[in-house]
């Protein structure tokens, strides 16, 4: 719907500006705080204009916690989660949409139901499995043999990148989105590929994957940020400092009761922490919008 009335134009612009201000204000305050000396940041009210301590604060934050290492860890985790989620969900969507196998609908329903089970809900069993990835097999063997066999096997994923990534890489949302996209692709395309002697996997790699690239880009952005923002899971599964992610590092910077409340350093750390996701969005924005808005045919 396109309307051309000056009053509406003004109104929508005012609304837009207000919303942008609402979103940007906290970010701006964080930026201002990061540029102030510790005295200024704790004065009330806090100044609205930036000071000159930005680089000093950034340097302090960088050294206080091992931010370089943590940035790297977060990067590995977020990329791994984004990559894993997309690979797994595009393959399951492919199976669900293009193949007719027994219990196909059940499989889809189960995937869909898992939407209701985020990490927070299943965190205890997930932790147990991560602590020893062979737990389910041991349980299975012991149940089948009626407890006759006693197995001691251990495959510990705590404090590893696998432990950070694997429990988070199944995504019902992404599977559903890919399925919806695949359903908009005309059946004739798959049939033409069949007649062109393409095997299902050839069809997937030669036709489906290139056609999905805008969707993949959009999901990559969303999933990367999802992975980057993880807090609870990395907190549980990493106990060694060199495996901490930046979100945890940021939390550890928070001033404790009797220390000097160095909010300027904390905010400098926050700026560092939010830089990679912002860069990802800036670079993938074009694709991101394309994937969300139009389906390129």
């Amino acid at each position, binding site marked *: 719907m396109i309307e051309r009335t000056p009053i509406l134009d003004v109104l929508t612009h005012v609304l837009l500006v207000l919303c942008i201000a609402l979103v940007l204000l906290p970010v701006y305050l964080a930026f201002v705080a990061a540029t102030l000396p510790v005295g200024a940041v704790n004065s009330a009210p806090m100044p609205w204009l930036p000071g000159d301590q930005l680089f000093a604060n950034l340097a302090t934050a960088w050294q206080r916690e091992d931010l370089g290492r943590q940035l790297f860890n977060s990067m590995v985790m977020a990329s791994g989660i984004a990559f894993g989620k997309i690979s797994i969900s595009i393959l399951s969507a492919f199976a669900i949409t293009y193949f007719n196998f027994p219990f196909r609908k059940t499989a889809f329903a189960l995937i869909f139901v898992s939407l209701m089970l985020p990490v927070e809900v299943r965190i205890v069993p997930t932790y147990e499995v991560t602590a020893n990835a062979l737990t389910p097999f041991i349980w299975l063997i012991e149940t089948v043999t009626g407890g006759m066999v006693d197995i001691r096997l251990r495959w510990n994923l705590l404090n590893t990148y696998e432990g950070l990534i694997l429990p988070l890489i199944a995504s019902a949302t992404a599977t559903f989105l890919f399925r919806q996209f695949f359903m908009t692709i*005309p059946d*004739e*395309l798959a*049939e*033409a*590929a*069949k*007649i*062109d*002697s*393409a095997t299902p996997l*050839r069809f997937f790699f*030669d*036709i489906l994957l*290139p*056609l999905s690239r805008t969707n993949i880009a959009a999901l990559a952005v969303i999933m990367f940020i999802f992975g980057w923002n993880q807090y609870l899971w990395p907190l549980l599964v990493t106990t060694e400092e060199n495996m901490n992610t930046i979100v945890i590092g940021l939390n550890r910077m928070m001033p404790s009761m009797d220390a000097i409340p160095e909010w300027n350093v904390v905010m400098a750390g926050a700026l560092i922490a939010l830089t990679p996701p912002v860069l990802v969005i800036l670079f993938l924005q074009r694709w991101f919008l394309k994937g969300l808005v139009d389906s*390129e*045919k």
Partner: protein
Amino acid sequence: MPDVELQGVRKVYAGGVVAIEGLDLKIEDGELLALLGPSGCGKSTLLRLCAGLETLTAGDIRIGGRVVNGLEPGERDIAMVFQNYALYPHMTVRQNLAYGLKNRRTPGPEIDRRIAEAARILQIEELLDRQPRQLSGGQRQRVAMGRAIVREPQVFLYDEPLSNLDAKLRAHARLELKKLQQTLGTTSLYVTHDQVEAMTMADRLVVMNAGVAQQVGRPMEVYARPETAFVAGFIGSPAMNFTAGTLGADRRSVALAGTTVALGTMVQGEAGSAVTLGIRPEHLLPTRADGQDAIGVLEVALVEPLGADLLVHGRLFDETETSTVRLPGSADARRGDVIPLAVNPADLHVFDAASGRRLHTIDEDRKAAA
């Protein structure tokens, strides 16, 4: 070039919908056979069965003598042209043409040779490096044809290949396609709901209705002697006029409401049984008011001037049904006019009212026997 043979082909979809009811058909070597029928008559299903995109419920399909029932579409040595062309949108025209050949591990130089050849025939040389979205409808259609040609298949399968084009382009593409077919001489199965396409393109055509082949024959033969009332009504435009009547005692005339039409010759069927009399609009000829040969008088209710022709609609024999007459464009007819009409008895078609089957004249039967 091989022939295609269908034997006892039957297709029942999950849920019990019968799409094709036991069908035997043979497509001769190098022939273009058109499958014609209204939507849902099973013609597309038949084509998809030949392509291997659907599985047979019963029967056999042979291509060049080889039973292909269990073979994948890619192994059947066929090529298909889809109604929406189904070009791969992210590939250039060249890649589109090459894709099937690459999958079949055709050597590179051979792929280049075939693409060059097909592009020359279809005059799409300048388009080879474009993507489908940069092409017009007609160009896409030609690329879809190209994708079929480069395969050098034993059989072409066409699924309403021209129905996405606008009317003018369609007439042009029809001619091109016919020329191409004459050059290549590949055995072809052509599905269409457009009778003009079927009449002009086909060596033989099959008229289908509700999963049953109603008639198989050369286009003019089907037009001249439709075997069922359905075929008679489906082939020919405007459609044939039908009137309910009773077969006379001598089986040489049909009694209609208020008049009797002489058939000129004896037909099969039972004297006194209910029949349907069919007359094509182009076979009703204006005559003098006092003409001995007049079979009825048309009261003009509606006139459609088409330029070359003038279509006149009105009541001819009874009160309920309107009949259509095709007059030359120069004729003068207005609403309210009455036009006495005559017909050559040889142009009358009589169908059994209950079964819809044609009641052959004795002459036709003799010819068929000979």
